């Protein structure tokens, strides 16, 4: 840049010649120079302002944009919470009262095909049929090659070995989906209680597992509730007791030539069901389809203990006696007329054999006299009988946590006439399930308060409901039942188990036939018992369907010969398992007279 001098000599000389002050030249030049510098500075300052402004715009713009993005995005939980829910099993386990697993889950695979991804559909179909012979070759080939199907389920559950075999085919169109499978490691044990499951909504990655029966259905929502974090459902069952009961009952059923059997073991104080077996049973891992033809009760799915409504016969007599004792009409030694046959209108009431003109109340129970109970029921009246049976739970479904039980109503007479009162007094004309009977015996033996049968483990030693009879009546009834077993004339002498003071009542009811009458050769033999009699803790009901055994030169069907020995064996096996100490051998209990006047 050429710098101009402030006082150019030529101009100074020229000015001097004209007689002017040459300093003016310098002042003008200096002013011009200063003006140029000011313009330059101003331009620079303007640029700086612009850049600074831009910087602020960018900075505030970035912050504003980020704030906008934050405000518009959905709030997300941190990674920690997001990943915990994935590790919880879909469905909670079911365990027995001691924590032994009754039902759990296993991860398996489902097999599906996507024909558009297939390399060689014909070969894939052929190879698949070799691995799974139950698949249809023609149909598979058609599905794989037609081009219409985009997605086909092939197998719901495959084993790891089968998966490897399919994997080895190397066909990209055959794919696997994860499946959670319900596993019942104990097989048939407790099958009717657990019920079973099926797949609900199916997706490629996972499928819903839904309960179809038993506690799996009753507690379906609870078992699938993720909020419970997979904590297991603890049942009241005792695995060892259940196993022993089932083993003895199955042997007994075969030995007694019965076509079915049921047993229920219940804690009389809490109503907890420690064991419930119905035979024949099934494997819940391979739950059979419900029978569509024939009698539902012939299907192994049928739970005889909770679904089977039967006339339970003479086991009901104790309730008639309970009514009389509660109304103060009799005491255990009151004499009752038992002349057989007794006539009521056109109906004759007969005993198994003639027991003479009269028996005491306790002997009516011991020898099981129909006539005696009929007379007691008539004396007490229909409404008293109804009240007693109602308070013992015979009018409603059993409130147990089984979907089947809540659908099984007892069969009551349409019109409760005097003849109904008579027949119901000895267990005919009213049909109920063995579970009803067990509940009623529990309420009767525990000191006289109602219990609610339950399959859930309770952490209490007593669950008292409403009082159904006085403690004294309860004690008198148990003592009467004890005589049925330990008196040599009782009907259940085979039920004696040393040390466990079994008390119980037999019942043999002929089954109704299609013609509306009764089948003499087909009976339901029941033994309802409580033990130990001096301080009842458990009640056991054993029912055999159509038992028949040849013993001592005769075909025998009565409960005393069939259900009683089976029940005795169950008690002998199960009581020690439950930790019940045998009572030291003592003098047999003799009934002490208590005056009622």
């Amino acid at each position, binding site marked *: 840049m050429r710098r101009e001098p402030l006082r150019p000599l030529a101009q100074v000389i020229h000015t001097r010649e004209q007689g002017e002050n040459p300093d003016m030249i310098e002042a003008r030049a200096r002013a011009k120079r200063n003006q140029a510098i000011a313009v330059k500075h101003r331009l620079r300052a303007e640029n700086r302002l612009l850049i600074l402004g831009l910087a602020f715009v960018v900075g505030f713009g970035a912050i504003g944009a980020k704030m906008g993005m934050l405000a518009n995005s959905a709030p997300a939980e*941190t*990674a*920690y919470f997001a*990943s*915990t829910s*994935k*590790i919880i*099993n879909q469905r909670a386990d079911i365990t027995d009262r001691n924590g*032994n*697993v009754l039902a*759990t*889950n*296993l*991860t398996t695979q489902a097999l599906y095909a996507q024909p558009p991804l297939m390399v060689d559909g014909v070969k894939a179909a052929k190879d698949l049929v070799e691995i799974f012979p139950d698949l249809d070759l023609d149909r598979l080939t058609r599905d794989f090659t037609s081009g219409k199907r985009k997605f086909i389920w092939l197998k719901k559950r495959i084993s790891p070995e089968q998966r490897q075999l399919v994997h080895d085919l190397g066909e990209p169109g055959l794919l696997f989906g994860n499946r959670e499978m319900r*596993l019942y*490691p*104990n*097989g048939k*044990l407790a099958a009717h209680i657990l019920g079973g499951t099926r797949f609900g909504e199916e997706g490629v990655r996972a499928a819903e597992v839904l309960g179809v029966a038993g506690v799996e259905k009753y507690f379906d929502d609870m078992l699938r509730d993720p909020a419970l974090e997979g904590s297991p459902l603890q049942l009241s069952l005792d*695995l*060892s007791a259940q*196993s*022993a009961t089932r*083993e003895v009952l199955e042997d007994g059923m075969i030995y007694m030539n019965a076509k079915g059997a049921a047993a229920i073991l219940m804690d009389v104080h809490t109503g907890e069901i420690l064991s419930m077996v119905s035979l024949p049973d099934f494997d819940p891992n391979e739950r059979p389809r419900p029978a569509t033809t024939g009698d539902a009760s012939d299907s192994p799915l049928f739970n005889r203990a909770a679904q089977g409504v039967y006339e339970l016969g003479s086991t009901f007599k104790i309730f008639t006696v309970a009514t009389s004792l509660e109304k103060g009409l009799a005491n255990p030694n009151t004499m009752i007329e038992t002349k057989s046959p007794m006539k009521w209108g056109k109906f004759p009431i007969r005993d198994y054999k003639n027991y003479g003109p009269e028996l005491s109340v306790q002997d009516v129970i011991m020898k099981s006299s129909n006539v005696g109970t009929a007379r007691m029921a008539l004396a007490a009246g229909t409404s008293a009988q109804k009240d007693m049976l109602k308070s013992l739970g015979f009018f409603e479904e059993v409130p147990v946590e089984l979907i089947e039980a809540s659908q099984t109503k007892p069969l009551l007479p349409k019109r409760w006439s005097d003849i109904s009162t008579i027949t119901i007094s000895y267990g005919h004309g009213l049909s109920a399930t063995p579970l009803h009977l067990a509940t009623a015996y529990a309420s009767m033996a525990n000191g006289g308060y109602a219990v609610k049968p339950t399959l859930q483990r309770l952490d209490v030693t007593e669950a008292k409901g409403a009082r159904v009879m006085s403690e004294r009546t309860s004690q008198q009834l148990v003592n009467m039942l004890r005589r049925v077993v330990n008196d040599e004339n009782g009907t259940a002498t085979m039920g004696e*188990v*040393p*040390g*466990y003071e079994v008390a119980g009542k037999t019942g043999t009811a002929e089954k109704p036939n299609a013609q509306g009458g009764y089948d003499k050769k087909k009976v339901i033999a029941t033994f309802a018992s409580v033990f130990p009699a001096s301080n009842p803790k458990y009640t056991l009901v054993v029912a055999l369907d159509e038992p028949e055994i040849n013993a001592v030169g005769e075909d025998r069907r009565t409960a005393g010969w069939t259900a009683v020995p089976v029940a005795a064996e169950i008690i*002998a*096996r199960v*009581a*020690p*398992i439950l*930790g019940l*100490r*045998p009572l030291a051998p003592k003098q047999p209990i003799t009934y002490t007279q208590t005056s009622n006047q």
Partner: protein
Amino acid sequence: MRVFLYLSCLGLVVFVAYWAYTENYTTQASSRRVDNLHQQIAQEREALSVLNAEWAYLNRPDRLRDLVEMNFDSLGLVPLAAQHFAELEDIPLPPAALGIPNLPVSVKSVTPVAEEGKDFP
């Protein structure tokens, strides 16, 4: 003085930026690790549930009963029966001189001892 202030501010900015970046990356690394651990826990739980299922399957009463029957010669196990309960008085305790306290407890079950000439029940 002014230069020193500028320099120290700049240094602070650099330091804070460095700290923020390292924190950010350690956090990301930690959350990845947590994710991995969760996956591992899930796998272990699945393995555990498989093992539990196997344990329950191997301990099913049917199988144990068969095993007991097969090994009766060597084990001689029988179902628990009323006779197997014993009172403390039935046990021959060492003399009191040894200082065994006489506790008011009862022993719930003891191994049955075959009496002479008598089989197990």
